[in-house]
Protein backbone atom coordinates (compact mmCIF):
# COMPACT_ATOMS: atom_id res chain seq x y z
CA UNK A 1 0.00 0.00 0.00
CA UNK A 2 1.23 3.45 -0.87
CA UNK A 3 1.81 5.84 2.03
CA UNK A 4 -0.14 9.05 1.33
CA UNK A 5 2.10 12.07 0.84
CA UNK A 6 2.62 14.35 3.84
CA UNK A 7 1.95 17.44 1.77
CA UNK A 8 0.04 17.69 -1.46
CA UNK A 9 -1.08 20.70 -3.50
CA UNK A 10 -2.96 20.54 -6.78
CA UNK A 11 -3.37 23.53 -9.10
CA UNK A 12 -2.89 25.92 -6.21
CA UNK A 13 -3.59 29.58 -7.00
CA UNK A 14 -3.30 32.72 -4.94
CA UNK A 15 -4.28 36.20 -6.01
CA UNK A 16 -3.55 39.37 -4.04
CA UNK A 17 -5.80 41.76 -5.87
CA UNK A 18 -4.30 41.73 -9.35
CA UNK A 19 -1.07 40.02 -8.31
CA UNK A 20 -1.01 36.35 -9.23
CA UNK A 21 1.39 35.31 -6.47
CA UNK A 22 0.95 31.55 -6.85
CA UNK A 23 0.07 30.23 -10.28
CA UNK A 24 -1.09 26.61 -10.62
CA UNK A 25 1.46 25.10 -8.26
CA UNK A 26 1.54 21.31 -7.84
CA UNK A 27 3.53 19.77 -5.01
CA UNK A 28 3.83 16.26 -3.66
CA UNK A 29 6.06 15.84 -0.64
CA UNK A 30 6.44 12.41 0.91
CA UNK A 31 6.67 11.62 4.56
CA UNK A 32 10.21 11.99 5.84
CA UNK A 33 11.34 14.10 2.92
CA UNK A 34 13.24 17.37 3.18
CA UNK A 35 11.79 19.44 0.38
CA UNK A 36 13.18 22.78 -0.64
CA UNK A 37 11.33 25.56 -2.40
CA UNK A 38 14.06 27.59 -4.05
CA UNK A 39 13.42 30.95 -5.63
CA UNK A 40 14.22 34.66 -5.70
CA UNK A 41 12.42 37.27 -3.60
CA UNK A 42 8.80 37.71 -4.55
CA UNK A 43 8.61 34.32 -6.25
CA UNK A 44 5.71 33.20 -4.07
CA UNK A 45 7.57 30.99 -1.58
CA UNK A 46 6.10 32.51 1.59
CA UNK A 47 2.63 32.65 0.11
CA UNK A 48 2.75 28.96 -0.81
CA UNK A 49 4.12 27.93 2.56
CA UNK A 50 1.65 30.06 4.50
CA UNK A 51 -1.25 28.54 2.59
CA UNK A 52 0.01 25.09 3.54
CA UNK A 53 0.34 26.21 7.18
CA UNK A 54 -3.24 27.44 7.25
CA UNK A 55 -2.19 31.07 7.72
CA UNK A 56 -3.58 32.24 4.39
CA UNK A 57 -6.66 31.27 2.44
CA UNK A 58 -6.02 30.05 -1.10
CA UNK A 59 -7.84 31.46 -4.09
CA UNK A 60 -8.35 28.03 -5.64
CA UNK A 61 -6.88 24.55 -5.82
CA UNK A 62 -6.67 21.55 -3.53
CA UNK A 63 -4.35 21.28 -0.57
CA UNK A 64 -3.79 18.50 1.92
CA UNK A 65 -1.25 18.42 4.75
CA UNK A 66 -1.14 15.24 6.85
CA UNK A 67 -4.60 14.54 5.45
CA UNK A 68 -6.00 17.86 6.68
CA UNK A 69 -7.17 20.87 4.76
CA UNK A 70 -5.00 23.52 6.46
CA UNK A 71 -7.81 26.06 6.34
CA UNK A 72 -10.21 23.92 8.32
CA UNK A 73 -7.86 21.51 10.13
CA UNK A 74 -7.93 23.57 13.33
CA UNK A 75 -6.45 22.31 16.53
CA UNK A 76 -5.79 18.65 15.59
CA UNK A 77 -3.90 19.87 12.50
CA UNK A 78 -1.86 22.47 14.37
CA UNK A 79 -0.91 19.93 17.01
CA UNK A 80 1.07 18.10 14.34
CA UNK A 81 2.84 20.90 12.51
CA UNK A 82 5.61 23.31 13.42
CA UNK A 83 5.95 26.74 11.86
CA UNK A 84 8.91 29.06 11.55
CA UNK A 85 7.71 32.13 9.68
CA UNK A 86 9.94 34.42 7.71
CA UNK A 87 9.43 37.35 10.05
CA UNK A 88 8.19 36.74 13.50
CA UNK A 89 8.49 38.01 17.02
CA UNK A 90 7.99 36.52 20.43
CA UNK A 91 7.42 38.47 23.63
CA UNK A 92 10.98 39.55 24.20
CA UNK A 93 10.70 40.23 27.92
CA UNK A 94 10.48 36.47 28.45
CA UNK A 95 13.62 34.38 28.82
CA UNK A 96 14.56 31.76 26.25
CA UNK A 97 13.50 28.96 28.58
CA UNK A 98 10.21 30.64 29.56
CA UNK A 99 9.22 31.12 25.93
CA UNK A 100 9.98 27.49 25.07
CA UNK A 101 8.07 26.22 28.11
CA UNK A 102 5.10 28.46 27.34
CA UNK A 103 4.78 27.26 23.76
CA UNK A 104 5.50 23.64 24.68
CA UNK A 105 2.58 23.73 27.10
CA UNK A 106 0.15 24.19 24.20
CA UNK A 107 0.99 20.85 22.56
CA UNK A 108 -0.04 17.32 23.50
CA UNK A 109 3.32 15.92 22.37
CA UNK A 110 6.32 17.92 23.51
CA UNK A 111 10.02 17.83 22.99
CA UNK A 112 12.14 18.36 26.07
CA UNK A 113 12.89 22.05 26.46
CA UNK A 114 16.36 21.30 27.81
CA UNK A 115 17.20 19.12 24.88
CA UNK A 116 15.97 21.76 22.42
CA UNK A 117 18.06 24.46 24.05
CA UNK A 118 21.11 22.30 23.43
CA UNK A 119 20.05 21.34 19.92
CA UNK A 120 19.95 24.99 18.80
CA UNK A 121 23.01 25.91 20.83
CA UNK A 122 21.37 28.40 23.19
CA UNK A 123 22.47 26.84 26.47
CA UNK A 124 24.48 29.91 27.58
CA UNK A 125 21.43 32.11 26.87
CA UNK A 126 18.73 29.93 28.38
CA UNK A 127 18.09 32.23 31.33
CA UNK A 128 18.51 35.49 29.44
CA UNK A 129 15.67 37.64 28.20
CA UNK A 130 15.01 37.22 24.50
CA UNK A 131 15.55 40.96 23.99
CA UNK A 132 19.26 40.48 24.76
CA UNK A 133 19.79 37.91 21.99
CA UNK A 134 21.49 38.66 18.69
CA UNK A 135 19.54 38.29 15.44
CA UNK A 136 21.01 34.87 14.72
CA UNK A 137 20.31 33.66 18.25
CA UNK A 138 16.69 34.78 17.96
CA UNK A 139 16.31 32.92 14.72
CA UNK A 140 17.66 29.79 16.37
CA UNK A 141 15.19 30.27 19.20
CA UNK A 142 12.45 30.43 16.56
CA UNK A 143 13.74 27.18 15.10
CA UNK A 144 13.42 25.65 18.56
CA UNK A 145 9.92 27.14 18.98
CA UNK A 146 8.94 25.53 15.69
CA UNK A 147 10.04 22.13 16.97
CA UNK A 148 8.71 22.38 20.51
CA UNK A 149 5.53 20.40 19.78
CA UNK A 150 7.50 17.54 18.20
CA UNK A 151 5.78 18.18 14.82
CA UNK A 152 5.43 15.61 12.06
CA UNK A 153 5.73 18.35 9.47
CA UNK A 154 7.94 21.39 9.95
CA UNK A 155 7.66 24.51 7.78
CA UNK A 156 10.75 26.68 7.63
CA UNK A 157 10.48 29.94 5.69
CA UNK A 158 13.99 31.19 4.96
CA UNK A 159 15.32 29.86 8.25
CA UNK A 160 18.90 31.03 7.77
CA UNK A 161 18.58 34.33 5.92
CA UNK A 162 20.98 36.75 7.55
CA UNK A 163 22.99 34.08 9.37
CA UNK A 164 26.75 34.05 9.46
CA UNK A 165 28.32 30.90 7.97
CA UNK A 166 28.81 29.10 11.28
CA UNK A 167 25.26 29.79 12.44
CA UNK A 168 24.00 28.46 9.11
CA UNK A 169 25.94 25.23 9.49
CA UNK A 170 24.49 24.87 12.98
CA UNK A 171 20.96 25.38 11.64
CA UNK A 172 21.62 22.83 8.91
CA UNK A 173 22.68 20.32 11.52
CA UNK A 174 19.37 20.89 13.28
CA UNK A 175 17.41 20.24 10.09
CA UNK A 176 19.49 17.14 9.32
CA UNK A 177 18.68 15.92 12.82
CA UNK A 178 14.98 16.33 12.09
CA UNK A 179 15.14 14.44 8.85
CA UNK A 180 16.99 11.62 10.59
CA UNK A 181 14.01 11.44 12.97
CA UNK A 182 11.78 10.85 9.94
CA UNK A 183 10.13 14.27 10.03
CA UNK A 184 8.90 15.97 6.90
CA UNK A 185 10.45 19.37 6.33
CA UNK A 186 9.36 22.01 3.84
CA UNK A 187 11.98 24.67 3.61
CA UNK A 188 12.23 27.80 1.51
CA UNK A 189 15.45 29.52 0.67
CA UNK A 190 17.16 31.62 -1.93
CA UNK A 191 20.53 30.09 -1.07
CA UNK A 192 21.66 27.45 -3.51
CA UNK A 193 24.06 25.78 -1.12
CA UNK A 194 21.30 25.41 1.44
CA UNK A 195 19.13 23.51 -1.02
CA UNK A 196 22.15 21.50 -2.13
CA UNK A 197 23.08 20.52 1.42
CA UNK A 198 19.71 19.86 2.98
CA UNK A 199 17.16 18.91 0.40
CA UNK A 200 16.15 15.48 -0.80
CA UNK A 201 14.22 17.27 -3.50
CA UNK A 202 14.17 20.82 -4.83
CA UNK A 203 11.53 22.80 -6.68
CA UNK A 204 12.56 26.05 -8.31
CA UNK A 205 9.80 28.65 -8.17
CA UNK A 206 9.71 31.89 -10.09
CA UNK A 207 6.85 34.36 -10.47
CA UNK A 208 4.47 31.89 -8.84
CA UNK A 209 5.36 29.01 -11.18
CA UNK A 210 7.35 25.90 -10.42
CA UNK A 211 9.77 25.87 -13.32
CA UNK A 212 11.87 22.84 -12.39
CA UNK A 213 11.78 20.05 -9.90
CA UNK A 214 14.04 17.17 -8.96
CA UNK A 215 16.87 16.10 -6.71
CA UNK A 216 19.64 18.65 -6.17
CA UNK A 217 21.77 16.56 -8.55
CA UNK A 218 19.30 16.47 -11.41
CA UNK A 219 17.02 19.50 -11.07
CA UNK A 220 16.65 21.59 -14.21
CA UNK A 221 18.35 18.91 -16.33
CA UNK A 222 21.51 19.40 -14.33
CA UNK A 223 22.45 15.72 -14.69
CA UNK A 224 22.45 15.93 -18.48
CA UNK A 225 23.30 19.59 -19.05
CA UNK A 226 26.39 20.61 -20.95
CA UNK A 227 29.72 20.35 -19.14
CA UNK A 228 32.66 22.61 -19.74
CA UNK A 229 36.16 21.31 -20.42
CA UNK A 230 38.73 24.04 -20.02
CA UNK A 231 42.48 23.84 -20.63
CA UNK A 232 45.53 25.61 -22.02
CA UNK A 233 48.00 24.27 -24.50
CA UNK A 234 51.67 24.87 -23.81
CA UNK A 235 53.21 24.57 -27.25
CA UNK A 236 56.33 26.05 -28.81
CA UNK A 237 54.95 25.72 -32.33
CA UNK A 238 51.62 26.51 -33.97
CA UNK A 239 48.94 23.85 -33.71
CA UNK A 240 45.52 22.92 -35.03
CA UNK A 241 42.93 21.61 -32.63
CA UNK A 242 40.89 18.56 -33.67
CA UNK A 243 38.21 19.96 -35.93
CA UNK A 244 35.34 17.86 -34.62
CA UNK A 245 35.54 19.75 -31.29
CA UNK A 246 33.93 23.18 -30.97
CA UNK A 247 36.45 25.20 -29.03
CA UNK A 248 36.13 28.72 -27.71
CA UNK A 249 39.26 30.72 -27.08
CA UNK A 250 39.46 33.51 -24.51
CA UNK A 251 41.95 36.36 -24.70
CA UNK A 252 44.25 35.04 -22.02
CA UNK A 253 44.72 31.79 -23.91
CA UNK A 254 42.23 29.62 -22.10
CA UNK A 255 40.34 27.20 -24.30
CA UNK A 256 36.95 25.74 -23.49
CA UNK A 257 34.86 23.00 -24.97
CA UNK A 258 31.16 22.98 -24.15
CA UNK A 259 29.82 19.49 -24.49
CA UNK A 260 27.01 17.18 -23.61
CA UNK A 261 29.34 14.20 -24.03
CA UNK A 262 32.36 14.99 -21.88
CA UNK A 263 33.66 11.40 -21.87
CA UNK A 264 34.07 11.23 -25.64
CA UNK A 265 35.34 14.79 -26.07
CA UNK A 266 37.87 14.45 -23.29
CA UNK A 267 39.15 11.28 -24.93
CA UNK A 268 39.43 13.07 -28.29
CA UNK A 269 41.23 15.97 -26.71
CA UNK A 270 43.76 14.02 -24.67
CA UNK A 271 44.39 11.64 -27.61
CA UNK A 272 45.12 14.62 -29.84
CA UNK A 273 47.47 16.17 -27.28
CA UNK A 274 49.40 12.92 -26.73
CA UNK A 275 49.75 12.31 -30.48
CA UNK A 276 51.01 15.83 -31.05
CA UNK A 277 53.24 15.82 -28.00
CA UNK A 278 51.57 18.79 -26.31
CA UNK A 279 50.71 19.31 -22.68
CA UNK A 280 47.19 20.28 -21.57
CA UNK A 281 47.66 22.70 -18.68
CA UNK A 282 45.05 23.40 -16.02
CA UNK A 283 42.77 20.80 -17.50
CA UNK A 284 39.38 20.94 -15.79
CA UNK A 285 35.98 19.37 -16.40
CA UNK A 286 33.13 21.18 -14.73
CA UNK A 287 29.53 20.00 -14.25
CA UNK A 288 27.10 22.92 -14.11
CA UNK A 289 26.52 23.76 -10.44
CA UNK A 290 23.04 24.02 -9.04
CA UNK A 291 23.66 27.73 -9.06
CA UNK A 292 24.41 27.77 -12.79
CA UNK A 293 21.23 25.85 -13.48
CA UNK A 294 19.19 28.02 -11.17
CA UNK A 295 20.43 31.28 -12.64
CA UNK A 296 19.76 29.96 -16.10
CA UNK A 297 16.22 28.89 -15.18
CA UNK A 298 15.43 32.16 -13.44
CA UNK A 299 16.99 34.08 -16.34
CA UNK A 300 14.86 32.27 -18.91
CA UNK A 301 11.78 32.97 -16.86
CA UNK A 302 12.61 36.66 -16.49
CA UNK A 303 13.45 36.98 -20.18
CA UNK A 304 10.02 35.92 -21.31
Amino acid at each position, binding site marked *: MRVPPAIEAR*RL*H*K*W*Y*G*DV*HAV*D*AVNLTIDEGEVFCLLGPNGAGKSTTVEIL*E*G*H*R*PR*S*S*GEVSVLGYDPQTGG*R*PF*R*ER*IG*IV*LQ*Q*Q*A*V*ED*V*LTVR*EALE*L*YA*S*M*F*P*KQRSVDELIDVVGLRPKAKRRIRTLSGGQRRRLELA*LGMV*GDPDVLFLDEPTTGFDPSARRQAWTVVEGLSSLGKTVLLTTHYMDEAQNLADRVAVISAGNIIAEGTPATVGGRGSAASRISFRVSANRPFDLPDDLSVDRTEDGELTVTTTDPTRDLYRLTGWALDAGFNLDRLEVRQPSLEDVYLELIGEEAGE
Partner: protein
Amino acid sequence: MNRPSDWSLVWGQIRYQNKIFWRTPVAAFFTLVFPLMFLLVFTVIFGNDEIPDLGVTTAQFYAPALAVFGAVSATYTNLAIGTAIARDLGILKRIRGTPLPPWAYLAGRIGSAAYLAAIAAVIMLGVGILVFGVEVYPETLPSLVVTFAVGVACWSSLGMLAAAVSPSGDSAPAVTNATLLPLAFISDVFIPPGPDTPVWLDTVGNIFPLKPFVVAFQDAFTPQVAATTDSWLGHMHWAELGVMVAWGVAGILLALRLFRWEPKGGERVGKPAPVTADKG
Protein backbone atom coordinates in the same frame (compact mmCIF):
# COMPACT_ATOMS: atom_id res chain seq x y z
CA MET B 1 -2.83 11.89 23.42
CA ASN B 2 -2.93 13.96 26.55
CA ARG B 3 -4.07 17.24 25.21
CA PRO B 4 -3.69 20.01 27.82
CA SER B 5 -6.99 20.93 29.48
CA ASP B 6 -8.70 24.19 28.60
CA TRP B 7 -8.34 25.35 32.16
CA SER B 8 -4.59 24.73 32.30
CA LEU B 9 -4.14 26.53 28.97
CA VAL B 10 -6.04 29.62 30.12
CA TRP B 11 -4.28 29.60 33.47
CA GLY B 12 -0.92 29.33 31.73
CA GLN B 13 -1.83 32.29 29.51
CA ILE B 14 -2.92 34.41 32.47
CA ARG B 15 0.34 33.75 34.29
CA TYR B 16 2.36 34.53 31.22
CA GLN B 17 0.48 37.77 30.52
CA ASN B 18 0.99 38.80 34.14
CA LYS B 19 4.70 38.11 33.86
CA ILE B 20 4.90 40.30 30.79
CA PHE B 21 2.99 43.07 32.55
CA TRP B 22 5.34 43.16 35.52
CA ARG B 23 8.32 43.21 33.19
CA THR B 24 6.93 46.22 31.31
CA PRO B 25 7.50 49.04 33.80
CA VAL B 26 5.70 51.71 31.77
CA ALA B 27 2.44 49.76 31.74
CA ALA B 28 2.76 48.90 35.42
CA PHE B 29 3.36 52.55 36.30
CA PHE B 30 0.44 53.94 34.34
CA THR B 31 -1.95 51.29 35.58
CA LEU B 32 -1.04 51.12 39.25
CA VAL B 33 0.72 54.35 40.25
CA PHE B 34 -0.73 57.00 37.97
CA PRO B 35 -4.30 56.95 39.41
CA LEU B 36 -2.82 57.18 42.93
CA MET B 37 -1.13 60.42 41.97
CA PHE B 38 -4.56 61.88 41.13
CA LEU B 39 -5.80 60.95 44.59
CA LEU B 40 -2.83 62.67 46.21
CA VAL B 41 -3.17 65.77 44.03
CA PHE B 42 -6.92 66.11 44.63
CA THR B 43 -6.66 65.72 48.39
CA VAL B 44 -3.81 68.26 48.45
CA ILE B 45 -5.68 70.79 46.29
CA PHE B 46 -9.12 70.46 47.86
CA GLY B 47 -8.08 69.31 51.36
CA ASN B 48 -9.75 66.22 52.74
CA ASP B 49 -12.81 68.05 54.10
CA GLU B 50 -16.40 67.34 53.27
CA ILE B 51 -17.44 68.33 49.73
CA PRO B 52 -20.46 70.60 50.43
CA ASP B 53 -22.85 69.26 47.76
CA LEU B 54 -22.08 65.60 48.39
CA GLY B 55 -21.76 65.23 52.12
CA VAL B 56 -18.60 63.10 51.89
CA THR B 57 -14.89 63.85 52.16
CA THR B 58 -12.69 64.45 49.13
CA ALA B 59 -11.04 61.03 49.50
CA GLN B 60 -14.36 59.25 50.10
CA PHE B 61 -15.47 60.58 46.72
CA TYR B 62 -12.23 60.26 44.73
CA ALA B 63 -10.81 56.95 46.00
CA PRO B 64 -13.66 54.84 44.56
CA ALA B 65 -13.87 57.00 41.42
CA LEU B 66 -10.16 56.62 40.77
CA ALA B 67 -10.27 52.91 41.66
CA VAL B 68 -12.73 52.55 38.80
CA PHE B 69 -10.52 54.68 36.58
CA GLY B 70 -7.54 52.44 37.39
CA ALA B 71 -9.57 49.32 36.70
CA VAL B 72 -10.67 50.72 33.35
CA SER B 73 -7.06 51.60 32.46
CA ALA B 74 -5.98 48.07 33.40
CA THR B 75 -8.61 46.51 31.17
CA TYR B 76 -9.63 48.86 28.37
CA THR B 77 -6.36 50.73 27.78
CA ASN B 78 -3.96 47.87 28.49
CA LEU B 79 -5.86 45.28 26.51
CA ALA B 80 -6.24 47.54 23.51
CA ILE B 81 -2.62 48.65 23.39
CA GLY B 82 -1.07 45.33 24.41
CA THR B 83 -3.11 43.30 21.96
CA ALA B 84 -2.60 45.73 19.06
CA ILE B 85 1.17 45.76 19.65
CA ALA B 86 1.26 41.96 19.85
CA ARG B 87 -0.56 41.89 16.52
CA ASP B 88 1.93 44.30 14.93
CA LEU B 89 4.85 42.19 16.14
CA GLY B 90 3.36 39.01 14.70
CA ILE B 91 2.84 37.42 18.11
CA LEU B 92 -0.85 36.92 17.43
CA LYS B 93 0.03 35.27 14.13
CA ARG B 94 2.46 32.99 15.92
CA ILE B 95 -0.26 32.05 18.41
CA ARG B 96 -2.61 31.30 15.51
CA GLY B 97 -0.10 28.77 14.23
CA THR B 98 -0.17 26.79 17.47
CA PRO B 99 -2.91 24.50 18.76
CA LEU B 100 -3.82 27.03 21.46
CA PRO B 101 -7.51 27.82 20.84
CA PRO B 102 -7.85 31.52 19.95
CA TRP B 103 -10.45 32.02 22.66
CA ALA B 104 -7.99 30.69 25.27
CA TYR B 105 -5.44 33.30 24.26
CA LEU B 106 -7.99 36.12 24.51
CA ALA B 107 -9.32 34.70 27.78
CA GLY B 108 -5.78 34.69 29.14
CA ARG B 109 -5.32 38.33 28.24
CA ILE B 110 -8.67 39.28 29.74
CA GLY B 111 -8.08 37.22 32.88
CA SER B 112 -4.74 38.88 33.42
CA ALA B 113 -6.21 42.35 32.83
CA ALA B 114 -9.03 41.66 35.31
CA TYR B 115 -6.52 40.52 37.91
CA LEU B 116 -4.50 43.72 37.44
CA ALA B 117 -7.68 45.79 37.65
CA ALA B 118 -8.39 44.21 41.01
CA ILE B 119 -4.86 44.97 42.20
CA ALA B 120 -5.15 48.58 41.04
CA ALA B 121 -8.45 48.96 42.91
CA VAL B 122 -7.15 47.33 46.07
CA ILE B 123 -4.12 49.61 46.09
CA MET B 124 -6.27 52.71 45.57
CA LEU B 125 -8.82 51.77 48.21
CA GLY B 126 -6.09 50.57 50.58
CA VAL B 127 -4.33 53.92 50.41
CA GLY B 128 -7.69 55.67 50.73
CA ILE B 129 -8.61 53.70 53.85
CA LEU B 130 -5.23 53.74 55.56
CA VAL B 131 -4.08 57.26 54.69
CA PHE B 132 -7.22 59.29 54.08
CA GLY B 133 -9.75 57.62 56.39
CA VAL B 134 -12.05 56.33 53.65
CA GLU B 135 -14.85 54.30 55.21
CA VAL B 136 -16.32 51.04 53.92
CA TYR B 137 -19.73 49.62 54.75
CA PRO B 138 -20.41 45.87 55.12
CA GLU B 139 -23.99 46.16 53.81
CA THR B 140 -22.77 47.53 50.47
CA LEU B 141 -19.99 45.00 49.91
CA PRO B 142 -22.09 42.70 47.66
CA SER B 143 -22.99 45.64 45.45
CA LEU B 144 -19.36 46.76 45.41
CA VAL B 145 -18.07 43.34 44.34
CA VAL B 146 -20.77 42.73 41.72
CA THR B 147 -20.38 46.22 40.27
CA PHE B 148 -16.64 45.78 40.03
CA ALA B 149 -16.88 42.38 38.36
CA VAL B 150 -19.45 43.54 35.81
CA GLY B 151 -17.58 46.78 35.12
CA VAL B 152 -14.30 44.97 34.59
CA ALA B 153 -15.94 42.45 32.25
CA CYS B 154 -17.60 45.26 30.29
CA TRP B 155 -14.40 47.27 29.87
CA SER B 156 -12.39 44.16 28.99
CA SER B 157 -14.69 43.45 26.10
CA LEU B 158 -14.50 47.11 25.04
CA GLY B 159 -10.71 46.84 25.26
CA MET B 160 -10.78 43.93 22.83
CA LEU B 161 -13.04 45.96 20.58
CA ALA B 162 -10.59 48.88 20.69
CA ALA B 163 -7.78 46.45 19.84
CA ALA B 164 -9.81 45.12 16.93
CA VAL B 165 -10.52 48.57 15.46
CA SER B 166 -7.08 50.11 16.10
CA PRO B 167 -5.20 50.09 12.80
CA SER B 168 -1.89 49.52 14.58
CA GLY B 169 -0.20 49.36 17.96
CA ASP B 170 0.94 52.96 17.50
CA SER B 171 -2.59 54.22 17.05
CA ALA B 172 -4.15 52.17 19.87
CA PRO B 173 -3.21 54.71 22.61
CA ALA B 174 -4.87 57.44 20.54
CA VAL B 175 -8.01 55.33 20.21
CA THR B 176 -8.22 54.62 23.94
CA ASN B 177 -7.30 58.11 25.11
CA ALA B 178 -9.65 59.82 22.70
CA THR B 179 -12.52 57.71 23.99
CA LEU B 180 -11.72 57.27 27.68
CA LEU B 181 -10.51 60.74 28.71
CA PRO B 182 -13.47 62.82 27.48
CA LEU B 183 -15.75 60.22 29.00
CA ALA B 184 -13.94 60.45 32.34
CA PHE B 185 -14.68 64.18 32.53
CA ILE B 186 -18.42 63.67 32.21
CA SER B 187 -18.51 60.53 34.36
CA ASP B 188 -17.82 61.85 37.87
CA VAL B 189 -14.24 60.60 37.81
CA PHE B 190 -12.38 63.92 38.01
CA ILE B 191 -15.23 66.37 38.62
CA PRO B 192 -17.85 65.71 41.30
CA PRO B 193 -21.44 66.19 40.12
CA GLY B 194 -22.78 69.58 41.11
CA PRO B 195 -26.11 71.40 40.85
CA ASP B 196 -24.85 73.28 37.78
CA THR B 197 -24.23 70.20 35.60
CA PRO B 198 -26.47 70.53 32.51
CA VAL B 199 -29.04 67.76 32.27
CA TRP B 200 -28.02 66.72 28.74
CA LEU B 201 -24.43 66.17 29.89
CA ASP B 202 -25.74 64.04 32.71
CA THR B 203 -27.76 62.01 30.22
CA VAL B 204 -24.85 61.55 27.84
CA GLY B 205 -22.74 60.32 30.76
CA ASN B 206 -25.40 57.81 31.75
CA ILE B 207 -25.58 56.31 28.26
CA PHE B 208 -21.93 55.32 28.21
CA PRO B 209 -20.68 52.61 30.54
CA LEU B 210 -18.15 54.63 32.58
CA LYS B 211 -20.46 56.79 34.65
CA PRO B 212 -22.71 53.88 35.64
CA PHE B 213 -19.59 52.02 36.79
CA VAL B 214 -18.36 55.03 38.80
CA VAL B 215 -21.75 55.88 40.29
CA ALA B 216 -22.60 52.33 41.33
CA PHE B 217 -19.17 51.83 42.80
CA GLN B 218 -19.09 55.19 44.58
CA ASP B 219 -22.51 54.66 46.07
CA ALA B 220 -21.13 51.64 47.88
CA PHE B 221 -19.07 54.20 49.81
CA THR B 222 -22.00 56.52 50.52
CA PRO B 223 -24.83 54.26 51.68
CA GLN B 224 -26.49 57.09 53.57
CA VAL B 225 -27.07 58.89 50.26
CA ALA B 226 -28.18 56.16 47.93
CA ALA B 227 -29.88 53.30 49.75
CA THR B 228 -33.42 52.38 48.77
CA THR B 229 -33.78 49.82 51.54
CA ASP B 230 -31.38 48.63 54.20
CA SER B 231 -30.98 45.08 52.86
CA TRP B 232 -27.94 44.35 50.68
CA LEU B 233 -30.27 43.92 47.72
CA GLY B 234 -31.45 47.50 48.16
CA HIS B 235 -27.92 48.67 47.53
CA MET B 236 -27.60 46.93 44.16
CA HIS B 237 -27.62 49.29 41.16
CA TRP B 238 -29.58 47.29 38.62
CA ALA B 239 -29.93 50.04 36.04
CA GLU B 240 -26.21 50.78 36.03
CA LEU B 241 -25.37 47.09 35.87
CA GLY B 242 -27.75 46.71 32.95
CA VAL B 243 -26.03 49.49 30.97
CA MET B 244 -22.64 47.85 31.52
CA VAL B 245 -23.88 44.39 30.58
CA ALA B 246 -25.39 45.76 27.37
CA TRP B 247 -22.15 47.50 26.38
CA GLY B 248 -20.08 44.49 27.35
CA VAL B 249 -22.10 42.02 25.31
CA ALA B 250 -22.28 44.32 22.29
CA GLY B 251 -18.56 45.05 22.62
CA ILE B 252 -17.40 41.45 22.69
CA LEU B 253 -19.69 40.39 19.84
CA LEU B 254 -18.42 43.21 17.67
CA ALA B 255 -14.82 42.55 18.73
CA LEU B 256 -15.06 38.92 17.70
CA ARG B 257 -16.39 39.93 14.29
CA LEU B 258 -13.73 42.56 13.68
CA PHE B 259 -10.74 40.91 15.34
CA ARG B 260 -7.63 40.54 13.17
CA TRP B 261 -4.72 38.24 13.94
CA GLU B 262 -2.35 39.85 11.47
CA PRO B 263 -1.35 43.50 10.98
CA LYS B 264 -3.11 45.46 8.26
CA GLY B 265 -1.75 44.34 4.89
CA GLY B 266 -0.74 40.96 6.28
CA GLU B 267 -3.49 39.27 4.32
CA ARG B 268 -5.54 41.12 1.80
CA VAL B 269 -8.55 39.45 0.34
CA GLY B 270 -7.59 37.87 -2.96
CA LYS B 271 -9.92 37.65 -5.90
CA PRO B 272 -10.64 34.11 -7.08
CA ALA B 273 -8.57 32.79 -9.94
CA PRO B 274 -10.33 32.94 -13.30
CA VAL B 275 -11.77 29.52 -14.08
CA THR B 276 -9.98 29.31 -17.42
CA ALA B 277 -6.55 29.57 -15.80
CA ASP B 278 -6.90 26.08 -14.42
CA LYS B 279 -7.45 24.13 -17.61
CA GLY B 280 -5.19 21.13 -18.11
